[in-house]
C-alpha cells in the first residue's frame, strides 16, 4: 500500500470512530491503534491477574464465613476479568503465550498498586473500597471505547465490579464501628492505601504522554486529573460517614470549584514502584511466574489426556 493510501484509510478510520462506530477484530486498523490496544488491554488483564495476589493472602484468614465467601468470589471475579481481557486482546493477533511472556519477563506492566503489601485484614476493606473504587472510575468510560471486544469485556467487568467496592466498604464500616483497636486498624489501612489509590488514576495531565491519542480513540474519555478529582470528591464523604480521616492535611472543600482541594502527591514514590522498586514487586512476579511454571505439567497432562481421548474416539468410530 502506498503512503497516500494508508493516509486515506487512516482518515476514514478516524472518521468512523468519531461517528461512534465500533472497530471489530477483522477491520482494517492503523498499526499504532493495534499496538496501543494490545499494550493497554494486556496491561489491564495483567493487573486483574496480579491483583488476585494481595487479596489471596487473606482468604484463609478471613474473620468469618460471610467474609470468606465474599473475598473468594471477588478474587474469582478478578480471574474472570483477566480472562475476558486476555481473550479480547488475543483478537488483535497476539497469542496468550506472548502476553504471559511479556508479563513474566517484566516487559509488560501491571497496575502499581498491587505492589503494596496487605498486612492486616483491614487492607481487604481498603482495597475493595479505594482500589476498586478508583478502578471503577477508570473503567466505566471504557464501556464505550472504540474497540468492540474491549468495550464488551468492560461492560461485563463493570457490572461485576460494584459488589467488590461494596464488600470492601462494608468491611471498613464494621471495623470503624468496632473496638478502638479495630477502628485504628481501619484508619491505618486508609492511611496506607489512600495515596497509592490516587496514583492509580495515572500521572498528572501535564506529564501524561498518551492522553491526546487515547482520547481520539476513546480509550480515554476524561483526563487523569479529572478522574482523580472525581474519585476524591466521591470518597471523602464516605470516609466522613464512618468516622475515618483522609490522611491529607491539605484536604479542604473548595466552595468555588465545588470540589475538594488536596495535597501534593509523591510522584517519586509512584515512579519508583513503576520501575520495580515497590515493596512487593519481586514477590508478586515470583508468585506469578511460579504459578505458571509449577502449573506446566498440569497443562501438558490435560493436553495429552485430550489427545489420547480423541484418538480413542477416532479408533472406535472406525
Amino acid at each position, binding site marked *: 500500500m502506498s503512503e497516500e493510501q494508508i493516509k486515506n484509510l487512516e482518515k476514514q478510520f478516524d472518521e468512523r470512530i468519531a461517528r461512534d462506530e465500533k472497530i471489530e477484530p477483522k477491520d482494517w486498523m492503523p498499526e499504532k491503534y493495534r499496538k496501543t490496544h494490545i499494550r493497554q488491554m494486556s496491561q489491564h488483564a495483567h493487573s486483574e491477574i496480579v491483583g488476585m495476589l494481595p487479596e489471596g493472602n487473606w482468604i484463609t484468614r478471613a474473620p468469618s464465613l460471610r467474609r470468606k465467601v465474599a473475598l473468594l468470589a471477588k478474587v474469582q471475579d478478578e480471574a474472570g476479568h483477566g480472562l475476558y481481557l486476555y481473550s479480547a486482546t488475543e483478537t488483535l493477533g497476539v497469542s496468550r503465550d506472548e502476553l504471559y511472556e511479556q508479563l513474566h519477563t517484566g516487559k509488560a506492566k501491571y497496575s502499581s498498586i498491587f505492589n503494596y503489601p496487605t498486612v492486616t485484614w483491614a487492607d481487604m476493606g481498603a482495597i475493595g473500597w479505594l482500589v476498586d473504587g478508583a478502578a471503577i472510575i477508570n473503567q466505566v468510560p471504557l464501556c464505550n471505547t472504540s474497540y468492540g471486544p474491549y468495550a464488551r469485556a468492560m461492560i461485563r467487568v463493570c457490572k461485576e465490579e460494584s459488589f467488590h467496592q461494596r464488600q470492601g466498604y462494608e468491611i471498613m464500616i464494621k471495623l470503624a464501628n468496632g473496638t478502638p483497636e479495630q477502628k485504628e486498624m481501619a484508619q491505618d489501612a486508609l492511611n496506607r492505601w489512600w495515596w497509592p489509590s490516587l496514583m492509580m488514576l495515572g500521572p498528572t495531565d501535564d506529564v501524561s504522554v498518551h492522553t491526546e491519542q487515547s482520547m481520539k480513540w476513546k480509550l480515554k474519555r476524561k483526563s487523569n486529573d479529572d478522574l482523580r478529582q472525581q474519585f476524591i470528591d466521591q470518597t471523602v464523604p464516605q470516609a466522613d460517614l464512618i468516622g475515618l480521616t483522609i490522611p491529607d492535611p491539605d484536604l479542604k472543600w473548595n466552595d468555588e470549584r465545588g470540589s475538594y482541594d488536596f495535597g501534593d502527591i509523591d510522584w517519586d514514590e509512584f515512579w519508583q514502584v513503576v520501575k520495580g522498586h515497590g515493596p512487593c514487586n519481586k514477590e508478586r512476579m515470583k508468585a506469578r511466574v511460579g504459578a505458571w511454571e509449577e502449573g506446566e505439567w498440569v497443562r501438558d497432562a490435560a493436553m495429552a489426556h*485430550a489427545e489420547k481421548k480423541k484418538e480413542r474416539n477416532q479408533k472406535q468410530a472406525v
Partner: protein
Amino acid sequence: MSTKNWPLWEIFVRSKNGLEHRHFGSLHAADAEMALENARDVYTRRNEGVSIWVVESKHITASNPENNGELFEPAQDKVYRHPTFYDLPDEVKHM
C-alpha cells in the same frame, strides 16, 4: 515452555429459554469438555446462562470486512423486499 498450547474456543451462551445462544467471548481449554466447564466458571458466575455451546475457534469461517461491498451490496437496491415499498389506500388501517 509447554510443547503444546491449549487451543482457543468460542463460547456461546443462551441466557434463558426462548432466546438464542449469543457469543460471549473465548477461552483456552484442552478439549471441548474442559471448554464447557471453564465457560461455566468464566462466563456464567451469576446465572447468566441455561445452555452453553463451545466451538473451537479454528472451525469458524468468517467473512472479510474488506469484501463487505460485494458481499452485502446486492441487498441494498431491493427496496421491494420491505413492506413500505407497497402503496396502500389510507382506508386500510392495518396490513
